[in-house]
């Protein structure tokens, strides 16, 4: 309940959206129309509530959204005259569902396999995350009109689709991970938003991979404060100030991961989370348990019949672990196998650079980093790789000492 003196809590307001929308769609309302009506109810709430707080915010929004839907239907009906009789208001179904079911239901709607990934992400953020269109546009650096169009096209694509069968959880997990990796550009922290959604999802389903994804996000997010310096420069894992890591988030991530692993249905997010947990667990870089990390990578790549083709990114990550366990020559041979699949990507060259450096071949490291920099598609990564190249070459020339004393 909202007390008159309380300031409007937009987070709490947003949290009401999934349940309300799910209820409207479940009782047979069109997804797009219901979403529009609810957005208008939210705008109305932001306008009215500060002066006239409702007794029951959820009921207030449901009433206003329903009234709006009826209005739209009436004006449509008036336009279409004789169709009026077909558009009588449907009786609401009894609400016997849990809030978690609503979140899951809506995630399945938004992550409908017929939608493009960009549309799935936008619709999820708006409908389940409750973000506004300008906020989502800002986060992805596109004009607001472009994002508005993307969302309305996605909603149109859902029109007429049956939204009552169980969706594909794997798609939902992928969409949430996409939101997470989009990071935090602009005013909205998408990583935090993805964690919030993954938390809801983990509560709504028994599926261990949902918990695995949540754990993976938490265990990576915990390192975020150390990942960039004050000038926005990338700081790699081997040089991060580990006292900046969020130990509470790590502890939470480990707990979530343990609860996932206990269900004994393993999957890629659980494996990736386990690898992240091992990194988080090391007191410093040289204490990293590469043996265990490699073992988890082996499990991860074993999920694919042909990991070189089907999961080259994991194979590349595994190569780094191979470098630390078996040496750089073995690891470079591993990356050779990936050349055909990943050989035009900056990450392949960056890993090669790292492995050459690990093996003490600074000349080759410098060349690989420089090649990686030319192929990078992100300014911070490009700048980082140029620095790595310059540093390796300078060290090779003996003009500066290698700053990595821990090696």
């Amino acid at each position: 309940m909202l007390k008159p003196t309380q300031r409007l809590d937009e987070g709490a307001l947003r949290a009401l959206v999934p349940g309300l929308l799910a209820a409207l769609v479940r009782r047979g309302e069109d997804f797009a129309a219901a979403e529009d009506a609810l957005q208008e109810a939210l705008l109305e709430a932001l306008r009215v509530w500060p002066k006239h707080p409702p007794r029951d915010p959820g009921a207030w929004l449901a009433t206003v959204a329903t009234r709006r839907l009826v209005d739209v239907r009436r004006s449509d009906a008036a336009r279409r005259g004789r169709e009026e009789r077909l558009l009588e208001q449907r009786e609401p179904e009894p609400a016997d569902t849990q809030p978690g079911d609503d979140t899951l239901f809506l995630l399945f709607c938004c992550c409908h396999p017929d939608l493009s990934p960009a549309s799935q992400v936008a619709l999820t953020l708006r409908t389940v995350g409750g973000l506004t269109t300008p906020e989502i546009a800002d986060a992805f650096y596109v004009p607001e009109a472009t994002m508005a169009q993307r969302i309305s096209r996605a909603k149109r694509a859902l029109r007429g689709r049956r939204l009552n069968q169980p969706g594909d959880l794997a798609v939902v997990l992928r969409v949430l991970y996409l939101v997470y990796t989009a990071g935090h550009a602009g005013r909205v922290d998408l990583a935090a938003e993805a964690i919030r959604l993954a938390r809801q999802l983990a509560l709504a389903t028994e599926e261990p991979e949902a918990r695995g994804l949540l754990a993976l996000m938490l265990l990576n997010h915990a390192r975020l404060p150390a990942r960039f310096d004050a000038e926005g420069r990338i700081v790699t894992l081997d040089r991060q100030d580990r006292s900046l890591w969020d130990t509470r988030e790590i502890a939470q991530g480990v707990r979530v991961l343990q609860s996932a692993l206990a269900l004994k249905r393993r999957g890629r997010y659980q494996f990736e989370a386990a690898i992240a947990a091992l990194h988080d667990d090391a007191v410093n870089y040289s204490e990293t348990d590469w043996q265990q990390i490699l073992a988890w990578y082996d499990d991860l790549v074993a999920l694919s019949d042909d990991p070189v083709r089907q999961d080259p990114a994991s194979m590349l990550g595994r190569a780094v672990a191979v470098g630390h366990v078996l040496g750089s020559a073995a690891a470079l041979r591993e990356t050779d196998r990936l050349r055909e699949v990943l050989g035009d990507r900056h990450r392949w060259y960056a890993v090669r650079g790292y492995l050459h450096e690990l093996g003490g071949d600074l000349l080759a490291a410098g060349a690989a980093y420089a090649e990686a920099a030319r192929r990078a598609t992100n300014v911070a990564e490009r700048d980082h790789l140029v620095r790595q190249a310059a540093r390796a070459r300078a060290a090779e020339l003996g003009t500066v000492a290698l700053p990595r004393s821990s090696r």
Partner: protein
Amino acid sequence: MPKYLLLKHYRGGPEPYRPVPPMDEWAPEDVEAHMAFQRHVGELLRENGEYVDAQALTPARTWVRYGGPDAAPVTTDGPLPETSDLAAGWYMIDVESHERALELAAYVSSEPGPGGEPLYEWIDVREVMSGAPAHD
């Protein structure tokens, strides 16, 4: 106020005033100084109220054209004459005058290179045509 694009190039344009090796062959401290200057330019433009946009482009380039009815787009990535321009990125600025745009471009060009000496890089200054009057 007119808008200008200050274009930087990977290659093309007038003969370099001061030829330099690629940045990955510079001394690390020179790389740092260069990148710090670029951050500083961005901040300066924002503080001045002259900033519109700044973007960097990857050097990979694909030329594409309509392939004809029922045909796939036709692409090529060369061969192109070595002298062909390859844009590297831009600042878009909103300034009082053409003179101000040149002044800022010259400042961008003063960015430190190897040895901390200015790069004297040629900057391609292009005026952005204004569109129809906006009516919101």
